[in-house]
């Protein structure tokens, strides 16, 4: 039971922060299928930073982890500007742009990782190995039966994610910027008429989605494998898209969708362990979140309401 909660949380939370980025982008009116590529590129940047720190500096494990998380955030943000440029400045089809960015990220990071490993660190490898993230338990709280697991073996990034998520929620729901962003996804003409630059709003929202994806991607790298390798592209970006769609593009419900996915996954693993099934079954478990997605889609699609102008190029002249 404990491992279901512990592993569930450490999977759900990175998913959640990536989904928040997606919400920012899509509530502003820009379809973002690029989350997969953004999280991968962000993790690549973070992994590279961690490798450089390990090789060339004396900075210790925990500090280097925070620096790597920050670098991943910046990397995702910069890479997201490509999506923003294509969709906003050049009015490209947003779906195609998203897909292209995903494919490009896979190829680019694989190539760069190999090249950098060979030239900078003098070894042939397709991955950046990370130092193992420390984990901690909160005294007293972690000793509560069952629920104590929520406070046991926590990755530091989980706290970072919760803090960032809270800030992101506040900005979206309570500040002028958030109001304008939400309005831009519904009726950009109204935003324009109010004297607000729609393109700036959307551009910044896509950058935010890149930053959140980068952060989330790096967290996955620490929690799942302690390295950044091509296996970072295993569909978590798409899963987070599914999560915020189930969450109706709202941060609160999206949180629960992420929790559901994370716990379904960790419960599946536990089941395989408890029943002592052959390891091939754990691959089957990996499909669990996606199967849930398909089933949920049957039920929630009807009640769902996407931002009204989602995916539409904003054209001032149009009435």
């Amino acid at each position, binding site marked *: 039971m404990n491992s279901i909660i512990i592993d569930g949380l450490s999977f759900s939370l990175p998913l959640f922060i990536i989904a928040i980025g997606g919400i920012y982008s899509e509530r502003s009116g820009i379809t973002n299928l690029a989350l997969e590529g953004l999280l991968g590129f962000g993790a690549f940047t973070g992994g590279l930073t961690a490798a450089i720190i390990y090789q060339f500096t004396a900075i210790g494990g925990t500090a280097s982890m925070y620096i790597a998380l920050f670098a991943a955030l910046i990397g995702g943000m910069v890479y997201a500007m490509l999506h923003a440029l294509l969709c906003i400045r050049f009015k490209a089809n947003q779906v195609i742009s998203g897909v292209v960015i995903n494919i490009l990220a896979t190829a680019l990071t694989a190539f760069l990782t190999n090249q950098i490993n060979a030239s900078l660190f003098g070894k042939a490898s397709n991955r950046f190995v990370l130092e193992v993230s420390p984990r901690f338990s909160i005294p007293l709280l972690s000793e509560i039966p069952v629920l104590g697991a929520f406070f046991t073996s926590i990755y530091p990034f989980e706290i970072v994610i919760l803090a960032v998520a809270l800030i992101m929620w506040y900005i979206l729901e309570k500040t002028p910027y958030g109001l304008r962003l939400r309005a831009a996804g519904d009726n950009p003409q*109204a935003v*324009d*008429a109010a004297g*607000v630059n729609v393109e700036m709003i959307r551009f910044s929202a896509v950058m935010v989605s890149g930053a959140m994806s980068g952060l989330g991607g790096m967290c996955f790298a620490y929690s799942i494998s302690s390295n950044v390798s091509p296996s970072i592209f295993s569909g978590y970006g798409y899963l987070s898209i599914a999560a915020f769609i189930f969450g109706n593009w709202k941060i609160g419900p999206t949180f629960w969708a992420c929790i559901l996915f994370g716990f379904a996954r960790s419960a599946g693993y536990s089941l395989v362990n408890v029943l002592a099934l052959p390891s091939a079954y754990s691959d089957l478990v990996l499909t669990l979140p996606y199967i849930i997605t398909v089933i949920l889609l049957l039920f929630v699609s009807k009640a769902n309401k996407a931002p009204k102008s989602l995916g539409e190029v904003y054209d001032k*002249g149009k*009435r």
Partner: protein
Amino acid sequence: MADDIVVLDHITKRFPRIVANDDISLSIKKGEIYALLGENGAGKSTLMSVLFGLYEPDEGRIFIRGKEVKITSPREASALNIGMVHQHFKLVSDQSVTENIILGIEPTVKKLGLFSKIDIKGARERIKKLSADFGLDVDPDAKIEDLPVSARQRVEILKMLYRDAEILIFDEPTAVLTPQEIESLLSVIKSLRDGGKTIVLITHKLDEIKKVADRCAILCRGKLVGVYDVDSISTQEMASLMVGYEYSDEVNKEEYTGGESILEVNNITLYNQDKVKVVDNVSFSVHKGEIVSIAGVAGNGQVELADVIAGMLTPSSGTIIYKGNDITDKTIRERTEAKIAYIPEDRQDVGLLLDYDLSVNLALKSYYHEPYCSKGILNPSEFRKNGEMLIKQYDIRSSEGCSTIVRSMSGGNQQKAIIAREISLDADLYIFVQPTRGLDVGAIKNIQERIIALRESGKAVLLISLELEEIMNLSDTIIVMYNGRIQAVKKRSEVTANEIGYYMMGAKHEA
């Protein structure tokens, strides 16, 4: 001059094919209701867009409160206390009234001296006060998508007031409203004036001008015809000046003589999605050379009935016999092929492909036939030929002729395009649903004359209209619908407008 708040001095604005405003000079006094009257495409909206900073004039100067200004964006207009309610509202549908009003100028408060946060509470109070001051009844917490059109319009007005607008421009504000809503809007406009605001009212409805305006400027084909005190000019004179020729609202037509039956509607009943009976056991017939009109207050099942006859809805029970054949289960195309023409109520959603050009739209019902299409390949030059002919014949005004994207055309000209397309089908039965809604008097008269001409040439016409005057002018037979049922069937010659009005209210029942 001292109390002139807005002065437009020799404004000229040209578009590629048309001079929208030709050397127009106006001065508007502070605290008056100034009407801008003209047909669709006369240049009213363009002129006000110049004042609101949406277009830059090619020539001329603008003075606000005696100072010359250059207005290059709505933002600058807003800074000069100019506000505008557009024909198409600019509202965010999934947000509240308050959020919509403060968008772009959100007031903030500091939380814990650290985080700044939108001051929704303060904004809500101010909006409440403003709406009380000017008699605008709006709930600041309601979501836009839950509000009716008239309330959305009041939100747009509040938006201007919240921005301290002194000069309020209304672009055809009554086009989307019901008669009762129009009354209350006009009284709001009056109370705004009494509160010291200056109002510019763009319209082509003469009776509204008579009711509220102090002065009116009349535009015709881009030129200023003159500025008149509303008290000293009759609506008849205004109409003539506006259309540019002697106008008379009388329609001449021959006495109806009777002909063979074209359409028989038998016991049609229709339930809507919510299982409510919207059309209830309706039967009637339409003959050659006859105009049958269905009168009724909006929402009494007339439009649904027309959709059933046109094939857009399937009746729950009953049959439709057209020229002796049962067409109840026929597709829309089969009906078109059988020569039924349909001018739908919603011209933008049902009648046109807004993002396609005019020549395509004018051939929408025949594009798959020779000569438009031969051996499965479309022939663009035939589309053009047909388009150019109809544009000329029906005086459809557009900036680029056949290749004009229909979305960019004015509502009146969009309607003309639909009517041109349908009449050119040479059908035997014409169904018109609100053919003149939102059009100016010149266009209305033109369309009404065409309907009469169809009748003279022996066509059967079914007309559904909310305008009692139109029904009285055109019909041979009048059917009044109330609550989905036929309330009365009368010969035009045997009934007065008042009687029809009573039936429309459901007052008198006649089996």
